[in-house]
């Protein structure tokens, strides 16, 4: 688990005995956000700027349970959703629906769904391709993907990492 290069969506969880649990989330440009959820309901947020060595005292704030829930709702877009959202990830039970955008250097660009063996190798399904003004619903296996395509994918959450590596590739965005 720790040997694998984490994708930009992975969260690591650590139990802090007597205190609660600690979650580390990657942020943009190599920064990290650490969230500590106390047994008491209190949350601590620690922000590590890009390149922080890990033992420098980072910026931190504490939130009560109510405040943390409200912040979570704001971050999740419950109050206002920006017009340009690259990835909209929705989880219904164990089912995950997500949008990803292919770049010119993505491994999946200029290859067909059949060539990529997406379903066999990542266990995710491409249910639609949004290309310019066109929407291709339930694309055929011989559909050739292009840079700038937005793929609507469905699958299990744990398979998302494999899909991102296989089709979208690493890098920002």
């Amino acid at each position, binding site marked *: 688990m720790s040997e694998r290069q984490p994708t930009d969506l992975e969260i690591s969880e650590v139990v*802090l005995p*007597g205190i609660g649990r600690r979650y580390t989330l990657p942020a943009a440009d190599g920064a990290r956000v650490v969230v500590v959820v106390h047994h008491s309901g209190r949350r601590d947020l620690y922000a590590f700027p890009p390149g922080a060595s890990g033992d420098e005292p980072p910026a931190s704030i504490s939130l009560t349970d109510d405040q943390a829930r409200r912040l979570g709702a704001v971050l999740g877009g419950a109050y206002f959703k920006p017009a340009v959202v690259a990835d909209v990830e929705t989880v219904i039970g164990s089912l995950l629906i997500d949008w990803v955008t292919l770049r010119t250097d993505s491994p999946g660009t200029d290859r067909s769904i059949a060539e990529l063996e997406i379903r066999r190798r990542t266990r995710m399904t491409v249910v639609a391709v949004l290309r310019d003004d066109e929407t291709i619903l339930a694309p055929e296996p011989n559909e050739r993907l292009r840079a700038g395509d937005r793929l609507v994918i469905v699958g299990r959450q744990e398979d998302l990492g494999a899909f991102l590596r296989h089709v979208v590739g690493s890098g920002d965005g």
Partner: protein
Amino acid sequence: MGDELVALGGAFLAAGIVARLGNRIGLPTIPLFMVAGIVFGPHTPGVAFVEDPRELALLASLGLVLLLFYLGLEFTLEDLIGGGRRLVAAGGIYLLLNVGGGLAFSFAVGWGTREALVMAGVVGISSSAIVTKLLVELRRLANPETRLILGIVVVEDLFVALYLAILQPVLSGTQGVAATLTSFGKAFAFLIILGAIARWGSGVVGRLLSSDDDELLTVCFIGLAVLVAGVAEELGVSEAIGAFMIGVVLAESPSAERIKRLVLPLRDAFAAVFFFAFGLSIDVGDVASVAGPIGAAVVLSLILNVAAGLTAARLYRLGPQPAANVGFTILARGEFSLVLAAVAAGAGLDARLSPFVAGYVLVLAIAGPLLASRTTSIARRVPARLISPGGPP
């Protein structure tokens, strides 16, 4: 009755006010509750709320029971197993250095074998309460070494349970091999029975206690905790271990989270009485007369904690700053040392033990947090070759 209530109220208030004053300059509460007991006790001139510490004996032992009960509630083996072998190794090395070093030191002081066995624990075991609070207050929960520090504390908690189980039969001073073996046997049979209940029977115990009503749940779990502690004491196993084990049993029950929340204010209140009552029995003159051993023990603990911090840093490939954080955060001594002193006083050991523990805990409970908050400047003075042979990672 009125004068007893005045004494009790005065004790609470004195402990609270002294701890508040100390809190302003970042000192932990546990030693300050004890200081309040010393200042407002019979051995110090001025106001004495309580002339005889025995007046508070029952409430103080309720504090001890709730302290250990809560520790048992918080204790889970999963935390230990989840941390892997390296964590157990780091905790083991810490205990080996500190309890082992403490034992050697205690024999060198030469107050007797039974006294030495108690002193080894006093000198060797950190205060979970102060360590946890320090990490939260110094905002170090996101640091890489924090998991390691808390893991070492969990290993220490497990050690405390076994150590208390062994200590009581030893302290009871039974003569002869057969009698000693019998009392060890009783202690371990008790541990195994309660351990088995924790493993397989906590559902049944949980259902017996469970109630949607907080009031009824509180009354029942307090009753169970105090009863089991009392039975343990009657069997010669010590109330501390009885309270700890019943906490472990209830930790597995469905009501565990609610019990933790409900017991916390009760524990805080009566543990303060326990620390205050311990302070009442302390004469500052006696502490001064054992200043030599106290000083030596403090220096020893400083050296051993720095050594343990450096060893853990090598094991986990951490830099000088995390190494200093490990060593100085777990340096704090507190509730366990005082629990051990109370157990020793109950067994009629050398009278110098209590003032020794009081002085030692006071120095380290103050020095520990002060050093832990200044590790950045301390770490700069640690030569890199002590951390890793090839320079810093």
